[in-house]
């Protein structure tokens, strides 16, 4: 786009076997567009949250494969790039209301986690720097809370599962672990239940009726009369 002015310095990237000259300082995704690619797959949120743009690359002269999100990683001179389409992975079907959140529940729905050979390939493939193998091990131990915590930043790009020699579907299992934790191990605060009760009883109806029928001037006055609640950090500062 016009407002994204790249630096003048140019670099070379290799996209699926073809070499292109592109400005330095662009993300892999922007660099490929500069080269003439128009994405219909492999591009989603373009901000590192959706996991659509998994990219595998290798540097010239290096034998190792590296992994990144094309929308987040800066293109570097000599990168050999391949965009990976999202690959299918089976996920277990379950009813969050009916499952029994006992320790072996993850193993029950995803028995293949027991095949983990602790090779850590999943962790190395993760563009979010998640300790993927550690949460698989936590899941094997029945530690749902740890699995949920360690996997929290997962964007479900699927690179871990594509690389896993044991065909584990890490990200689907981790999603289930987080839902079990959220549903069964992190109770709903009482004040939320109380508020729902108040709404059901119509506690705010009269006041809302009044607000809805207010003139603009009356609303402006009511708005100006609000007193802003001080955040704890703010009151510390003003002391």
């Amino acid at each position, binding site marked *: *786009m016009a*407002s*994204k*002015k790249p*630096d003048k310095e140019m670099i070379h990237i290799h996209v699926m076997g073809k070499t292109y000259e592109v400005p*330095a*300082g*662009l*993300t892999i995704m922007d660099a490929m*567009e500069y*080269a*003439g*690619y*128009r994405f*219909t*797959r492999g*591009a*989603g*949120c*373009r901000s590192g*949250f*959706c996991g*659509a743009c998994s990219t595998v690359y290798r540097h010239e002269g290096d034998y190792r494969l590296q992994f990144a999100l094309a929308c987040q990683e*800066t293109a570097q001179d000599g990168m050999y790039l391949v965009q990976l389409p*999202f690959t299918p992975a089976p996920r277990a*079907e*379950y*009813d*969050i209301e009916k499952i029994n959140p006992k320790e072996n529940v993850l193993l029950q729905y995803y028995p293949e986690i027991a095949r983990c050979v602790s090779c850590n390939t999943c962790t190395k493939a993760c563009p*979010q720097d998640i300790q993927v193998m550690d949460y698989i091990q936590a899941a094997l131990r029945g530690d749902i809370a740890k699995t*949920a915590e360690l996997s*929290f*930043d997962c964007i479900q790009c699927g690179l871990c599962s594509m690389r896993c020699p044991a065909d584990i579907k890490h990200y689907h299992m981790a*999603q289930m672990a*987080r*839902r079990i*934790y*959220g*549903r*069964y191990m*992190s109770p709903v*605060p009482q*004040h*939320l239940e109380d*508020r*729902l009760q108040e*709404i059901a009883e119509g506690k*705010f109806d009269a006041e*809302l009726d009044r*607000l*809805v029928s207010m003139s*603009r001037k009356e*609303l*402006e006055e009511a*708005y100006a009369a609000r007193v*802003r*609640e001080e*955040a704890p950090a703010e009151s*510390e*500062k003003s002391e």
Partner: protein
Amino acid sequence: MSKKELIGGYPAYMRKSIEKVAATRSKRLKEGPPSPMSPEEREAILERNHPDYKPSGKRKLAIGPSAGELVPHEVADIIESHPVIDPRSIDLTKVDYDVDVLVIGGGGAGTVAAIFAHDEGIPTDRILIVTKLRHGDCNSIMAQGGIQAADRPQDSPVMHYLDVMGGGHYANKPELVRALVSDAPGIIHWHEDMGVMYDKVDGEYMEAHGGGTSRMRMHSAKDYTGKETFNTIRDQARNLNIPVLEFFPAVEILLDKQGHAAGAVVYNIETEEYRIIRAKATVLATGGFGRIHIQGFPTTNHYGATADGLVMAYRAGANIIDMDSVQYHPTGVAFPAAILGQLATEKLRNQGATPVNVDGEEFVFPLEPRDVESAAFIEECWVKNKGIETPSGIRGVWLDTPMIDAIHGKGTLKKALAAMWTMWHRHDIDITVDPALVYPTLHYQNGGVEIDANGYTRVPGLFAGGECEGGVHGKNRLMGNSQLDYNVFGRRAGISAGQWAKKAKVDGLSLQHAIDYEQALEKAGIDTDRKAPIILPDYRPESVHERTLGHLL
């Protein structure tokens, strides 16, 4: 950029200003930020600096249900466009999918609508979601800071209502705001039932302020709130086996002989064929317009945010509301250029980071409503010349992120704002040590297709929820109300569509409205080869376009 010129991720010349920011930090921490502006001061700074207040940026729509409404040129351009299909050559006799409820859009609002249409009694195999990219390539998944719900004893839906109306400059439709604030606690409870991991400490929510809130009611899941909530909702839809057609954008809404919405023409991105979907009720959940880059601004939005639903619904007879206002999020990334315009969540400010200028001085209350905060940044950079210029000629202000750990203790930022830390860390910037450079970025479509409190549009059988609809936020949305909007109005639209589908009968399929629209364009003297919906933006440079041979195979 070559790495050797950078120190801690920033060009060496910026270091002098960064030192000034560090030098004033302890004083600023002690004294607190500037006071909030009065309503008069807010209006004045908006008038002076906000892009919405520039008359040259807009024009009146010449045709259609909202002819005469002022909208940005970029919006007028896609609305005053020809259909991408030739409506006369589409074969409507062969129906490829026949369903009760068609949901156009696979983001937050669409997924919620599908779940609640099912809840209303529509079998899942009679529901279909179509989406241009994957299920979940959407803005909902990118929301960072949080979702508002007035659930603490010292708060109430009444206070939430006032905050929303004032933030929206009182242009909001009252019955929509009432629905938004009244449903909010129930939405949080629904999320809890599905297992969303909201931030809690000692069993209580960690609730914070957002710009323009009078009570702390922002519920968060670190700075991955959108991802955590949306992924849970999508997981639920998958457990229910709700069918989804991916890479199948809708390109025109179908009406029946009575003028009721009756499905859509969809397009297979790979094979380039069209398919006909007949539906008893149609839900529009197509999101916003960031990727049409109003006034050339970069955007936080996902790749498919091209306002397709707005274009299609308008041709089918739906009117639009509040499309003259655009939300620029004050803190888009201004440096490094690689991630220009991506979002720096408002949560950074609600956790204590404050905006400071080139000399390390604070110049605005950090949590004004977004339009006011953005206007203040623009003024600081381009009127007072106190911004910091980047190597690519953009100006920005510092967001003093190291204040977060200074207030809440070391390690807070990295834990509570993991996505933010990672985003800059990928470019060698440590925002716990140095401030971040930010500037307003195109963020949200405040208006859209007008709905009533139950998600009905003016076209019978067409419902809408989420960013594509308008009236909820008036002229400016507050932080944490978009997550809420897609849940509240996605749900309401889904329930209404389910109820409608149980009674509706589709009487023939028609594209006459698209033919009529072509004629209206001609009659108004709009001579253009523009076509819409545009489906995806095209970021290939001119040098490529000049030499393209098009589709030869």
